[in-house]
Structures are given as C-alpha cells and as structure tokens.
C-alpha cells in the first residue's frame, strides 16, 4: 500500500524557522509593552525582528545530543583526573594561583552571564533572538558548574579554593569581575548584549580562554584544559550570537549607531580592565609559558579585533575609544599588576612570588622595551628586601578605581614613569579613577557608578581596619591561603607528594 504523500523537502533555514520563530505570535489580549516592558527604554529602534539572522540553527534535539556527548567526555576525564591524583601532574603548584583567581572571579561571572541571558532570553520580543539567548543561558550555567566540578579536586589538596563563594562577594579583587557583570546585568537588554555577547564574548573571550587553556595544557593540567575547551565549544556559538546582535542593531536603524558605539567604547574598556588579570597569569603565573600577553594580544587583539572592526566599518562603527590606550598599556600591565599583587599578597587568597632570574630573562626578551627599563629594577629591589628578611609588604589602603575597582596602579599611557590618576567631583564627593577610560565611563553615568560597592573603604568603615576580622569575613586563612608561594603549605605539600610519587622513600 503506497499512500505516502511526498513531503516538502525543507532546508535547514526554513525548518529552523518553523521550529523557532514561527512559535511566537503577536499578543492581542495583552499589550506588547506589558509582555516586553524593558525593550524600549534604551532607545534602540527595531523595526523588524524577523530580519534577525539565527546564528547556528540548533534545535533542542540536536542540542541535547551534542551537549550530552561533550558532557560524557568531560566528566570521564575529570573523574580519571581525580582518581589518579592528576593534580600531581602539573608542572608546579605555583601554577594553581591562576586557577584560584579563575574560580573566585571568573566562574561567578559565568553564573552571572547565565542569569543575564535568561533575563534577555525573556525580554527580547523576537523569538529567534530569545532562543539564541536562552541557549546561551543554559550553556553558561554549564560553564559555572563544570569549572567548579573540575576545580573541586584541587580544593581538597590545596589552599585558596575553599572559600570561593565568600570571596566572590567580599574580597577586594573579585569585585573587579563582580562589578563588571553587575554593571552588565543592571543595564538594559540591548546593552547587556553588547557588554557580554559582543565585547566580552567576541572581542575578549579568546584572550581569556585560548591562551589560558593552552597554558593549562603546557602545565599538565588536564582538568582545566578539559573544562576550558569544552566551554569554548559553546563559546563559538556565543560569539556568533554577539556578532549577529550588533549587526542586527546597526542594520535596523541608523539612529542606533551612536548608542551602540557608546556601549562599545564603554564595554571594551571595562572588559580590557577585567582581563588585565589574565596578563599576569600568562606572563608570571605559568611555570611553563605558552606565549606572552603581548603575543596573545597581537593574535587575538590586534589581528582578530582589527579584522572585526574593519568588517564593522561598513556600518559606520569605529574601533572602541580606548583601543590606542590599550595598545600602549600592553607592555606594562602584567608587570604593574604582579607588583601590585605581590605587595598586597597578605590580602589575596592565592600566592604570588618574586620572579626568578630565569623568569626575568624571559620577561625581558618578551618585553624588550619595558621590562629591564622599568620593572626589573623594582623586582631586584623587592628581592633584596626579601633576602634581608624584611619583605616588602603594603598594608596601606589601596586606592581603588570607582569604575573598574582595580587598585590605581597603572601609569600614564605615554609616560611609564608617571602614575596615572584621575578625579571627578560629583555632588560634592571626589571619585578616583585609574584611567581616562574609566573616568569617561563614570562621567557618562555617574548615578550608576556612585552606587559601586568599594571593598577597601568598607573594610575600614565596618571592621575598623581590623585585618584579622576582615580575613575571617572574606574566608581567608592567614598563613595558608595568602602570602608568598615560597615557603607556603602548597609548596611544601606539592614537593613532598611529588617526591613520594617519583621515589621509593
């Protein structure tokens, strides 16, 4: 019996259209403004949501299938890593500082992105846009969880991981990342997309993940390589969403250009400051280095960022305002950060250290115009103090930038001998900034940034400067989590355990 009627052969695009955007409808019992109340106040004009081009047309059945395959691989590897003492395979326990910063500052950012994308996945009136955002929302909780799961085994053997949830809300340096994500989430849905979807995911995420994960591979850390690459495979979808989103906004109405450009300027600089911490990981924290921060910037900043903004020029977009200042900072920032971290290491839930001669030779080869001239002499001085038994510690109050929340440790873009410091007076109060970029961001939205929670002043107001009470409050165990790596419990244990693995005694 052949009664089969030939069905229309549907292409990928048409089939996906039926499976997603055809599901929505124009409400008639309720006003559209009631259903989507937040989509207009930012001033972005959208005339036709159907012009949205779907980035990667995954329906849920394929999503479950492919993601399950990734998950099986991931958990098989981290189970084996835990069962076989995989942590002893890393080159040196110094390396773990990078992971500790990651868990305290970046994983909570993944979670914030999860919440943020769930919100915009509901607030945009276009079904195609919503579905793409929802998939990113569920991916981002995956990233937060796989990171916690991968690093959970390190927590059992090493210090500095155990209080990441407390550190996330309380310790001073995590508020750099926290304020970044809070800033994006407190913005409207379109700005959120430019902040996280475009600037962070497209322009900057490669600088974070690719060199970082290669670094993990070079340093024998299978757990991190695995979560990193597994997360990145979702990231390719997210980056494509971010790029689609900016193109969509620019194509919908010429009036959107100045708004979008303003956000690009803001979020490039915000992201550049957050990722500054990555520069110290790459230049200082990897016992076996992959490439310098400068080299990573050449590939993922100059080359890719350049190509991207050249492509977007057809819409009238110019590269972000802080781009040139960023370029000028590249040869300085990792050194300035690491010097800062070292002097405030009493207050960090990770270790820092004075670079060895070999490290410094590598740094001067990678930074021929800056390292020997400005930074080697400072490290030499710090080392002399340490050798003399009077290590350099700064218990003073770090002045934090009101916008990015980093200590004001940078120099003028055109003069590396001059510390860079900006001030704005607003309603009778003085606010401090690390750079022109951060000052401009504040000046554009002072009412937002005056609200910022600054961890250092709070320490002195609420805890009367009692460092011990502060350490308890942030979950930092003095003498274990903090201070110099040299002489730390992590160092002693790692050396002893490795000794047990490599000898018969």
């Amino acid at each position, binding site marked *: 019996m052949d009664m089969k009627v030939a069905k229309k052969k549907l292409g990928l695009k048409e089939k996906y259209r039926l499976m997603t955007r055809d599901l929505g409808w124009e409400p008639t019992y309720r006003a559209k403004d009631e259903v989507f109340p937040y989509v207009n106040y930012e001033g972005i004009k959208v005339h036709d949501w159907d012009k949205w081009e779907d980035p990667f047309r995954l329906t849920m059945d394929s999503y479950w299938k*492919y993601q399950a395959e990734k998950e099986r691989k991931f958990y098989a590897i981290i189970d084996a890593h835990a069962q076989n003492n995989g942590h002893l395979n890393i080159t040196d326990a110094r390396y773990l500082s990078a992971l500790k910063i990651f868990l305290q500052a970046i994983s909570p950012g993944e979670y914030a992105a999860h919440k943020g994308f769930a919100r915009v996945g509901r607030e945009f009136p276009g079904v195609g846009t919503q579905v793409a955002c929802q998939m990113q929302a569920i991916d981002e909780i995956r990233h937060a969880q796989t990171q916690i799961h991968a690093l959970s085994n390190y927590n059992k053997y090493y210090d500095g991981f155990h209080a990441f949830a407390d550190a996330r809300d309380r310790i001073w340096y995590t508020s750099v990342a926290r304020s970044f994500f809070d800033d994006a989430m407190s913005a409207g849905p379109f700005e959120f997309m430019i902040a996280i979807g475009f600037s962070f995911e497209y322009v900057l995420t490669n600088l974070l993940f690719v060199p970082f994960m290669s670094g993990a591979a070079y340093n024998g850390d299978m757990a991190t390589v695995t979560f990193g690459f597994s997360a990145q*495979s979702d990231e390719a979808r997210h980056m494509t969403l971010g790029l689609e989103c900016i193109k969509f906004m620019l194509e919908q109405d010429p009036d959107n250009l100045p708004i979008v450009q303003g956000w690009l300027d803001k979020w490039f600089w915000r992201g550049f400051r957050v990722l500054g911490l990555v520069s110290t990981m790459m230049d200082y924290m990897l016992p076996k280095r992959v490439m310098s921060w400068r080299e990573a910037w050449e590939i993922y900043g100059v080359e890719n960022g*350049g*190509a*991207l903004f050249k492509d977007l020029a057809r819409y009238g977009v110019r590269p972000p305002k802080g781009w040139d200042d960023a370029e000028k900072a590249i040869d300085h920032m990792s050194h300035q950060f690491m010097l800062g971290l070292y002097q405030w290491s009493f207050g960090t839930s990770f270790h820092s250290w004075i670079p060895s001669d070999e490290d410094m030779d590598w740094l001067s080869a990678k930074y021929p115009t800056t390292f020997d001239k400005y930074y080697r002499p400072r490290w030499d001085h710090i080392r002399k103090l340490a050798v003399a038994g009077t290590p350099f510690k700064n218990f003073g109050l770090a002045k934090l930038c009101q916008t990015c929340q980093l200590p004001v440790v940078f120099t003028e873009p055109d003069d590396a001998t001059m510390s860079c410091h900006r001030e704005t007076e607003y309603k009778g109060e003085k606010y401090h900034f690390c750079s022109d970029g951060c000052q401009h961001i504040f000046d554009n939205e002072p009412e937002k940034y005056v609200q910022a929670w600054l961890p250092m002043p709070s320490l002195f107001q609420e805890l009367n400067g009692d460092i011990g009470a502060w350490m308890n409050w942030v979950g930092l165990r003095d003498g274990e989590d903090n201070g110099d790596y040299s002489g730390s419990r992590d160092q002693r244990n790692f050396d002893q355990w490795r000794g047990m693995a490599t000898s018969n005694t």
Partner: protein
Amino acid sequence: MSTVFIALQANEETRPIIEAIEIDNPLAVVNRQPAMVKIDAPNRLVIRKETIEEQIGREFDLQELHINLITLGGNVTEDDDSLTLSWAE
C-alpha cells in the same frame, strides 16, 4: 586582507575534518598547538560536508562540528552543505 580562523580540539574526530578543510581551502594555514589546531585563512574559509564525508566514509552532520569546536573568527554563514567564515573584503 583580514584573517578568518577556526580552532578545533586536536583529536581523532577532528583529524579528517582538518584534512577536509585543507583540501577545500588551499590558502589555509594549519597551526598545531598542544591540544588544539588553529586554522587561519585570508578573508574566507569554507567547511564542506561532502569533503568531510569523503574523508570519513560515513554521513556527517555539520552540526557535529560543535562537539570539538574551540573558537572561530569571522562572520558565519551556515546551510545544509557548508559552513563559511568570512570578513567583508
């Protein structure tokens, strides 16, 4: 000229995909790094379903790429038979 790129995990599943990319994109440059293979190409790079299928001798759904994809750069155009990365020239 701008560079487009795609990075894949280095494993048995991606080996034939990388070969297929090299066949379809004579100008592509393959960089092998620990755990990762990054392929750069000037302005445009195309990944064809058919070429991959010839390498592996079975049907291949282009969406299988997601499993081992690490990152990419360029505008993505996707249809049933190919995935293209490009920058406006």
